[in-house]
């Protein structure tokens, strides 16, 4: 008996060892590219660390965080980020859903929609921002050209806070909707056609089929898209930066743009790291309800 027990224990140990060995590459990789940078970020956020004055570097505890909460620029950037998220998340989700349904339809133009879906997704965000900045340029932009053709006066969209926010939101929605659509399209393709067909045979209208069959089954995909979109929206940088650099002035400065300015321009690594840590925390906190919903829907 004891020999059998020893053999069993040894086999368990061997399995555990093998498990750890198999996990090791992933653990090492995640440690190198996630744990170490995040650790450094937290460490820097607790220090006064400005490269312009390296001699003054010292541990300051939570002072950087306290200064942030008293900084009007931080609250302004938080407001802009949330406003942008509130506009672009529903916008991209809605447009993405419409595009996904079009790409999943039986139409003979389905291939064209699928092809068009890939274009915004494949474009680098900075390039997308520059492209939209050209669209809205006062002198050469296609938007003002259309306005002139309609008998309107051209408007300098990107130098007024409201129109600039509108232009940035539009570009962000356009760019993000294709990613949302690709996720939703994948979800739509997993829904058995028989279910929709049965509903149709039982007299359900197109809307009823969508509302009561497609949407509930698509819900896990919607949640996944929502998580990705929400995190990306909170970290909005490329498009607003390449279109307006957060301007005019600082009127459309997001938290990510402010972090970039603090770190790469002002070289205030400690203060910028505190802001980046808050941004990371905010993204994690907002992910929790979505993840809960996702697991619940799987159950």
């Amino acid at each position, binding site marked *: 008996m004891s020999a059998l027990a020893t053999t069993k224990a040894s086999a368990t140990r061997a399995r555990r060892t093998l498990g750890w060995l198999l996990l090791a590459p992933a653990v090492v990789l995640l440690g190198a590219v996630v744990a170490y940078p995040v650790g450094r970020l937290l460490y820097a956020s607790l220090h006064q660390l400005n490269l312009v004055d390296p001699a003054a570097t010292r541990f300051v505890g939570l002072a950087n965080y306290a200064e942030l909460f008293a900084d009007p620029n931080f609250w302004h950037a938080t407001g802009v980020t949330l406003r942008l998220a509130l506009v672009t998340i529903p916008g991209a989700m809605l447009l993405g859903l419409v595009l996904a349904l079009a790409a999943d339809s039986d139409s003979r133009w389905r291939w064209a929609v699928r092809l068009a879906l890939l274009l915004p997704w494949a474009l680098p965000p900075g390039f997308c921002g520059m492209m939209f900045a050209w669209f809205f340029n006062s002198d050469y932009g296609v938007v003002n050209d259309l306005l002139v053709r309609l008998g309107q006066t051209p408007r300098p969209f990107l130098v007024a806070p409201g129109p600039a926010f509108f232009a940035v939101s539009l570009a962000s929605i356009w760019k993000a909707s294709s990613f949302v659509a690709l996720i939703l399209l994948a979800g739509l393709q997993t829904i058995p056609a028989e279910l929709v067909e049965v509903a149709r045979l039982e007299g359900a209208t197109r809307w009823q089929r969508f509302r009561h069959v497609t949407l509930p089954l698509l819900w896990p995909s919607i949640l996944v898209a929502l998580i990705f979109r929400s995190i990306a929206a909170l970290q909005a940088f490329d498009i607003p930066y390449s279109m307006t650099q957060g301007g*005019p002035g600082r009127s459309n400065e997001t938290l990510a743009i402010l972090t970039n300015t603090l770190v790469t321009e002002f070289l205030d690594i400690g203060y910028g790291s505190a802001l980046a840590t808050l941004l990371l925390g905010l993204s994690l906190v907002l992910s929790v309800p979505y993840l809960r919903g996702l697991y619940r829907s799987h159950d």
Partner: protein
Amino acid sequence: MNSPTPLSPRRHPRRLRRPLLGLLSLALAGQAFTADITLRVFAGGTAQRPDLLRHILDDYEAAHPGIRVEIQTGAATSELQRKYLSTVLNASDPSLDALQIDIVSPAQFAAAGWLEPLDSYFGAERDAYFASFSPVYQKVNRYRDQWVAIPFTTDALFLYYRTDLLAKYNLPVPTTWEELAQTAKAIVDGEHNAQLRGLSIQGAPIEGAVCTFLLPYWSQGREFLDANGRLTLDRSAALRSFALWRDLLARNILPANTAETKTGDTINDFAAGQLVFALNWGFAWTVFDQAPGTKVKGQVGVARIPRVAGGEHVTSLGGWQWSVSAFSRHKPETVALIRYLGSPEVELRLAREAGFLPSRPAAYTDPAYLAQLPWLAEAGPVILSGRSRPITPRYAEVSETLRNTTSAVLGGSLAPEEGVTQIEDRLRRVLR
């Protein structure tokens, strides 16, 4: 029985030792003479003419066997280059040896410990060498009593004007902003050309917008920082600076999209014949006069920047400096290279082939230069008395605040009073 071959090393090791040692010595000596050192220089964007720099470096390589120099180009604007270099140097990356940096960057980069002090490499020649440059460059390239950069090119803001149009309407070159407004209006009204505009300045949130704010401010005899680097902003002078530009916008002398205008936009519009006046850097002269497609060749005048009523003429200096990365693995070789790049012969070549202005006062009376750039005789005193933007390790904050605020005021999203308050609030904390 096989007899051993006479050259078998195994059998006759002693006979071969000498020739082998000789060969080894030769190989090592050869290695020492031909060991290639590759230096990598950051040369900025296309406006800094990396193409011309390549030719200059080719000559350097030919004169210095064993040294190879690679060019890395970067972002188009000064502030983007500064951001890029900050990222590279913050990582202590040794891949760049020499850095071409804007006139406003040496203090910040040196404070961060990214620049190699040059004093020890110059020895006894140091003082004489640096004294040959104009005083403003002596000031910007020193940090805590150490030389950290060598001037490469000088630049200054000028008023460009259309000689043909001023002659046609028999109008003199304006010396005040009000005269400029009236001259521009008279010409634009008279030309009946929907494309023609009065004046273009840089209003986009770029370095040019910093100068846009400072020019009328300085013209009122005010300083932005004191000798200790503390903010000395004169609120009413700053308000008048913004008011001047807002007035020119309201009178349509400046186009409505001024808050979007970058340096290149002004150059393109002037070269296309769509402007009466333009505020731009000295290098633009070559574009107006020589670039393919220019419509204003032979019709361009250069003048001092107008002053505010009762004020003085001022200009803002620009230009690029060479410095050595503190993380370079080839510092002596890099110092030798940048010394060559800052030499009078390279300076003359830059003037001849690219129209870049020299940093040594002696050049402005040198017939060799005047033959290439005849307008230097008149422009020289303006350039040599030009001002640098505020010299402070916290220049990034100064620049970010001034350019964004100026752009927002020009765009109308910020009232001049709000703009001045914003500048005070943001900079008082860091410049104290």
